[in-house]
């Protein structure tokens, strides 16, 4: 069933855009400075319609700054942001009409029933009542949150609120849908449903810009991704292309015993990161036996409790590029 939501309110002054127009989202040479701090440093990227594009990076990498400039909440120091033929920097009102947005913070829905919040978001975005209602019901069913349909927001759990927030962004989607950590607090079962709906947005022709820390989830669901660190775009490509550098590498993960200092890393270890008791490093395939012997010696010495050797994932590329683990809470300094 196809419902056109683009012919709503045939208002005078409506600017129609030909269906064949290029609706790609382009960021070109985007720079944002706050005094001496460069939050975005000459960022260039492009998201095609139908594409789910992951924007990865640790806290403070500049992801949210990029998003805020896109939806007209911040002014770039330099560079361009366009969606199709529209200049989003020059016309923030247009940016807000063409982009739907799920922020990382919770949505202001304490006083709304779940279904009402979604419908109202669709109405504010210009949707027709009957079509918005049908789409709302479909989203509620698809995400399996029907039991909370008539519950008011202040009684919803964080995960359900997050899903309602996603529905508010997806009910009447813009040409660009920006989702900032959409899976936060969502249970594993509904995460899978949520990823399916994110993919569905792409299938409808939206460009989806997905901001996340969760590399492992993104690896399975995005078409392209960019990794940001310290305001710079440090890598861009498909998940496979970003992993290719690590193809001849293995991932050695050592769970250190509580209270133990980080052991001195041998020269064959790649860039390593410790988060909590978890020490992760990459090693060459040829060093596998040496790595296992080293990890076993740590266990024998009581320094570590267990270890695992596995194929590298996108997360290892992420660690290499950013010197951070994804989803980390208390990062320590990266180690050689």
């Amino acid at each position: 069933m196809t419902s056109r939501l683009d012919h709503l309110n045939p208002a005078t002054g409506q600017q129609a855009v030909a269906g064949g127009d290029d609706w790609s989202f382009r960021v070109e040479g985007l720079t944002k400075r706050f005094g001496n701090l460069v939050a975005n440093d000459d960022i260039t990227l492009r998201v095609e319609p139908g594409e789910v594009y992951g924007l990865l990076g640790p806290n403070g990498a500049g992801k949210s700054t990029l998003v805020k400039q896109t939806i007209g909440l911040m002014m770039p120091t330099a560079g361009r942001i366009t969606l199709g033929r529209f200049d989003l920097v020059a016309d923030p009102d247009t940016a807000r009409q063409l982009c739907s947005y799920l922020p990382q913070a919770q949505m202001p829905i304490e006083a709304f029933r779940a279904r009402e919040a979604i419908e109202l978001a669709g109405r504010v975005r210009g949707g027709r009542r009957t079509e918005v209602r049908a789409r709302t019901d479909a989203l509620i069913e698809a995400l399996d949150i029907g039991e909370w349909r008539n519950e008011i927001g202040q009684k919803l759990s964080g995960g359900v609120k997050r899903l309602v927030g996603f529905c508010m962004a997806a009910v009447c989607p813009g040409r660009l849908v920006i989702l900032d950590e959409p899976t936060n607090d969502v249970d594993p079962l509904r995460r899978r449903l949520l990823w399916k709906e994110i993919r569905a947005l792409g299938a409808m022709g939206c460009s989806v810009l997905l901001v996340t820390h969760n590399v492992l989830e993104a690896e399975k669901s995005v078409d392209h991704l960019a990794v940001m660190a310290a305001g710079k775009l440090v890598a861009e490509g498909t998940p496979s292309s970003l992993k290719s550098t690590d193809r001849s590498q293995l991932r050695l993960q050592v769970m250190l015993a509580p209270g133990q200092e980080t052991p001195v890393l041998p020269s064959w270890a790649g860039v390593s990161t410790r988060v909590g008791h978890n020490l992760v490093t990459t090693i060459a395939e040829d060093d596998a036996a040496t790595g296992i012997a080293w990890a076993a010696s740590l266990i024998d010495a009581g320094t570590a409790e267990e270890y695992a050797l596995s194929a590298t994932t996108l997360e290892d590329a992420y660690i290499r590029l950013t010197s951070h683990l994804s989803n980390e809470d208390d990062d320590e300094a990266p180690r050689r």
Partner: protein
Amino acid sequence: MTMAVVPSSTVEHGPARAWHSFRSMLYWHLASLRIWMMTLAAVQVLSGVGFVLGISLFFKHIPTSAALFVSTGVPVINLVMVGLILGPQLVADQRSNGSYEYLRSMPVSRSVNAAAWYTVCLIGGVPPMFVSLVVAWLRYNVPLHLSAMIIPAIVLTSFAATMLGYALAHAISQPMATRLITQMLVFVIFGYAPVLFPMRQMPRWLGTVNWWFPFRHMATVTRAALTSGPSPGLVTSYIVLGAWSVLCAGLALRALGRRP
């Protein structure tokens, strides 16, 4: 996968879009307040009625002129409370809990959003105002003469207060500063502005200061519409209030559109 939709390919401006956005945002604001609606209504009515009745506890005999002053001053308090005090505090809460960013990202023009909030302030201010007037009339039997000028008086008083509150809310980025300033404004309106008592009871310098601020003029235009007899400086008060309204609306819209 859910039903397919086609993402919007149009950018709409113009009156139809503005009217649609206005209705949606009016519903949004009213629904946002619904769980506190009964409490808010009670606070609004009790603050007005409480003042009208409470003043008689201070004095054994209240002269008719004083009763009339209080009775025609309390409606001003009712009219300004939602827009000037509650509005900025709600925005401060939105800034604190992070939802301010989402609200600013909604595809609604700043002026339409402001108009929707102003309508909420009228809905929240006008009924308690009339409740206060009825209670005052019953308690003191004061000679009230409601004229048609009550309409522009309400419209302008509420607008000036709402836009002042809107400007404070959106121009001040620190929620705590917003809360402190609105608390101070309550103090100023009750104690240091000639709203509930005549200006002749104030030091001359304080009267001069008040001439430049809007609260005295809110009281002048409202009182003129509720009483018979001469209203010196009425036109001036309308002009000053209008100037405050335009200034505050401009500041608020500029603050809302600011992109750091």
